[in-house]
């Protein structure tokens, strides 16, 4: 079974529609996804080759219950053990994996759970990624917040008590250039203790500039590590260039960022291979940059505006839990973030096992925090959402729920130095 991603909008001109259809049906019409575009920095690194060698040769069907048991008995988890834990054979050992994962989480993080909220400041996008609500052919309400509007949104979020913010944009250099994002970071430093970014990949010197503006963490989702699949999903725009995206975290670290976050979007391709590659991406970069703080997210595909049917296919909650437990056992020291794409009940359960960070008070739309936080009807324009969220708990509610589970919610554990 596959997702049906293509949706035509009646608002597109005949020329635009024709181009869209050619991109969808004619691979020869699309640019190479492995070639850098002008202006994209190329760095020397062996991380990608290492990750791909493991992923391409990964045959998860060969692992048996015996391999899984052995992996769980070993004191430290090797790459081979991790491959066993991600295999279908490990599904029968989910409870044992969860027990082990909880132990490892406790050793490294105690009972703390960090809270943050995303702030989308613009949803313009120059890419055609077929599964994404922001894609340039999707007819949605577009918006880019002015600095005054950003500050207003930040004030509302800060009043709720939130101390960590993740600033997001659609991937459009034209609409949301690096300077615009940098100014937003400077504003964020006034209202929040910790500022992270989830924007289009940029060059090392641009990451350095953004770091100087106050950001210290960079999240880039690779979406899928399967190059062929990636090619068939990212049909147009700079995001189509797979290797430039792969090296984003390394450029961010070279630019002085303290931490980086990684993820595949589960449901796009073979999730076991994508989970393997995501964790190995962390593993090999950590060996090269041992001071860096690393974290993994584990988003699954969600419905978007104009396509309610998009779903994560064979990645059910059970598989997601398996992946998260395997991540924790293999990389006990990394942060694991579980976003509001997942339900409240899943998030309540997974923070007791392996997740160390959850979002709260989430909106993936633009400029709508006032109406969402206060219930007030806003007169101002709002931009549409990137995807539908599942868990809409406020910060206060999330804080309470976590504390009631016997865990310690933490709003900040960070200093900009």
């Amino acid at each position: 079974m596959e997702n049906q991603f293509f949706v035509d909008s009646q608002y597109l001109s005949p020329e635009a529609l024709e181009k869209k259809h050619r991109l969808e049906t004619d691979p020869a019409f699309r640019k190479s996804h492995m070639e850098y575009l002008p202006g994209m920095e190329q760095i020397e690194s062996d991380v990608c080759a290492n990750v791909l060698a493991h992923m391409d040769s990964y045959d998860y069907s060969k692992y048996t219950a015996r391999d899984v048991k052995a992996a769980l008995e070993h004191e430290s988890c090797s790459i081979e053990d991790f491959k066993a834990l991600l295999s279908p054979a490990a599904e029968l050992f989910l409870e044992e994996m969860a027990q082990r994962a909880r132990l490892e989480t406790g050793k490294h993080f105690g009972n703390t759970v960090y809270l943050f909220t995303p702030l989308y400041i613009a949803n313009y996008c120059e890419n055609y990624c077929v599964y994404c609500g922001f894609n340039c052919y999707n007819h949605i309400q577009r918006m880019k917040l002015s600095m005054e509007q950003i500050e207003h949104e930040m004030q509302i979020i800060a009043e709720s008590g939130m101390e960590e913010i993740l600033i997001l944009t659609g991937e459009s250099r034209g609409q949301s250039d690096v300077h615009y994002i940098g100014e937003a970071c400077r504003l964020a430093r006034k209202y929040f203790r910790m500022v992270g970014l989830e924007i289009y990949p940029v060059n090392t010197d641009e990451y350095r500039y953004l770091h100087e503006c106050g950001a210290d963490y960079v999240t880039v989702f690779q979406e899928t590590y399967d190059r062929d699949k990636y090619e068939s999903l990212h049909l147009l725009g700079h995001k189509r260039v797979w290797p430039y995206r792969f090296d984003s975290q390394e450029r961010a670290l070279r630019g002085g960022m303290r931490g980086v976050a990684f993820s595949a979007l589960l449901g796009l391709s073979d999730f076991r291979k994508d989970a393997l590659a995501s964790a190995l991406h962390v593993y090999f970069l950590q060996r090269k940059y041992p001071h860096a703080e690393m974290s993994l997210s584990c988003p699954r595909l969600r419905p978007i505006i104009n396509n309610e049917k998009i779903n994560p296919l064979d990645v059910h909650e059970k598989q997601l839990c398996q992946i998260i437990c395997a991540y924790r056992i293999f990389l006990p020291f990394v942060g694991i973030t579980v976003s509001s794409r997942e339900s409240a009940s899943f998030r309540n359960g997974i923070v007791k096992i392996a997740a160390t960070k959850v979002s709260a008070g989430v909106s993936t739309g633009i400029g709508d925090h006032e109406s969402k936080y206060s219930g007030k009807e806003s007169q101002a324009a709002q931009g549409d959402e990137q995807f539908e969220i599942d868990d809409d708990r406020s910060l206060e509610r999330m804080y309470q729920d976590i504390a009631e589970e016997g865990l310690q919610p933490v709003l900040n554990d960070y200093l900009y130095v």
Partner: protein
Amino acid sequence: MQTDTWKLGGQEFHSRFILGSGKYSLNLIEAAVRDAGAEIITLAVRRANTKEQESILDYIPEGITLLPNTSGARDATEAVRIARLARELGCGNFVKIEIMRDSKYLLPDNQETIKATEILAKEGFVVMPYMYPDLNVARDLVNAGAATIMPLASPIGSNKGLATREFIQILIDEIDLPIIVDAGIGRPSQACEAMEMGAAAIMANTALATAGDLPLMAAAFRQAIEAGRKAYLSGLGRVLSRGASASDPLTGFLRD
């Protein structure tokens, strides 16, 4: 017997249990003070860098000495900056230096720690450097003005006990400052052993934070540390080697 106290930065302490900063909760601090008898509590400055409703500072009871640490620092410059911030926040003059360039094992960077110790000691801080147990480094830290030396027993949070036992013993034997064993102590018996060896105090956090019954484990640590201390003060008895000792002395042939 006289009261057994020890001194640090001009202050006198009775308790030889110090609460570390790794995992924080209200329950942990309560148990550490009430049941483990802690008089010093470590506080990560980066965790104190929060709004009022959440601040750990509010959790700390009166009469407790705050020990801010520089966790999050990746080099001496960052550690110095964090220490100065701690002073501005009103955390006093004590500072535990933690400098890590490794996010996986969180092992301390000895070289950078020496540099930070020198700068902060000159600024009047009571400097407590967390270090990997190396005698040469410990001597450099003494010369740099450290108030104590804090060698790790095993990787932080690992609860693996005295993996570096022999090297900590060398520090205890050779360094004239109090030696506080920090990181990796996972059981009361391990804390007891370190105290028997002559450590001045024990710092722990994860061992309590991840215990089944927090107050009970806190009390167990208190008793173990006191027991180890008394054993050290009394002088340990001899340990028989395997088998009986020879009845005919090897030196029996000596005439005069």
